[in-house]
């Protein structure tokens, strides 16, 4: 006997899947933000040797499919480095690296957007290179970067759907399971798509709030 009908428990499954997707999205976004910013700081300090390496890795990660990166980590690493990688670990490693590559580009553009004259003025006043970065560049760069960053994060949320391919029980995988059981693809995938859509809108809305707050000093306040 097959249980092909939808049950109320399916809603719990979907919620679980959404939780896994959002959780991994949050973790990898934060890790990627830290790593990408670190790469940009390396470029800011012009660390010899590391700067071109970082630029190369970022370019490689940006220009290749996430699916292939995922396979490389999930199937390649265990075979080559002889270490065990669980699907969730592989997902975290891959998504973090991929997000970091895009954040690196945004962070570099944000740092470059600060005028040379400001940095020179700050240096003349005796601020160290770190103080310039922390007190002069970072606040302005954050306001500059937040717009592209939100666009990127909305995109990365959708990229998380790929981890279902290596067996992480995220929203897409739950959709695939429900689809196989009920054989009602239209209903299942519409529900899954709707949940992703709402999550994306939520991210965009939070980002918009944050953007308004970060740019309130430079915003036009009227006369």
């Amino acid at each position, binding site marked *: 006997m097959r249980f092909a009908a939808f049950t109320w428990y399916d809603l719990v499954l979907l919620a679980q899947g959404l939780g896994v997707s959002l959780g991994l999205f949050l973790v990898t976004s934060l890790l990627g933000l830290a790593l990408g910013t670190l790469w940009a700081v390396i470029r800011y300090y012009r660390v010899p040797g590391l700067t071109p390496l970082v630029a190369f890795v970022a*370019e490689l990660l940006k*220009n290749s499919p996430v699916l292939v990166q995922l396979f490389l980590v999930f199937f390649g690493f265990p075979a080559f480095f002889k270490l065990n990688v669980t699907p969730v670990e592989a997902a975290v490693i891959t998504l973090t690296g991929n997000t970091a590559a895009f954040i690196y580009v945004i962070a570099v553009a944000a740092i470059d957007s600060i005028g040379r004259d400001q940095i020179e003025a700050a240096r003349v006043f005796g601020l160290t290179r770190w103080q310039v970065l922390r007190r002069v560049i970072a606040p302005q760069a954050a306001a500059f970067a937040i717009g592209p960053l939100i666009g990127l994060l909305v995109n990365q949320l959708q990229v998380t759907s790929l981890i279902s391919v290596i067996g992480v029980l995220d929203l897409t995988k739950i959709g695939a399971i429900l689809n196989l059981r009920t054989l009602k693809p239209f209903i299942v*995938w519409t529900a899954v798509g709707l949940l992703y*859509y709402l999550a994306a809108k939520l991210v965009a809305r939070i980002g918009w709030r944050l953007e308004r707050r970060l740019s309130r000093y430079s915003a036009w306040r009227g006369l």
Partner: protein
Amino acid sequence: MKPVSIYAEPEKRVLFDPSILMAHLSFLAAGALLTAQACVLALTGSLVVGAGVAIARTSASAGLRKAAAVYVDVFRNVPFIVQLFFFYYGLPEIGIYIDAFTTGVVALSIAGGAFASDVIRSGILAIDPGIIEAAEVSGLSKRIIFTKIVLPVALRTSIRPLGSVLINLILTSSILSTITLNELTGSAKIVAADTFRPFEVYAALLVVYAAFTYAVSIAITLLHRRQNRYLGGKVT
């Protein structure tokens, strides 16, 4: 009696040996060709869909504008893999039986069209209203103005952003491997399973994709510059 392993004893392993791929090059090339075919077809589809949606989004009718905006919003905010499964598993349900390749190209075109329409729309909005007024005064019909003036100008100035859409299409096309299509990623999966050397296979694949998209982006920059050369260096 000593148990016999069904697996061949691994010979002494070289640390990183991409030469194992040599035996599978023609198989991988066939996959790459399939990827290229899917991308070219999907690019054409995206441009057609994108131009149509861009027309709707810049049209005078509010209903049409709204409908086009909803289309773009939905297909940009739902993951491609979900859209793909929707079509791949859903279409047979309503009696449309098409193969994985066609499904993939259609799904790519629809998703790519949403991104392309945004690009083309901003290209249309960037056109100096004076040009359109001049055309109207000259007595050209609406259709002629659109097909002979607005669209060519909009497409030409948006070659570079359309190039990023194309590069995204190439990267996204790897997802077609999840619906049993043996394009480049799909055939690499088979080779990885065949050789037991997934690291070499996927590392090589990563570099191939990166090199290819890099080359495409350079070609697009050159094309963009050439097509807009008379703008006097305003377009870099």
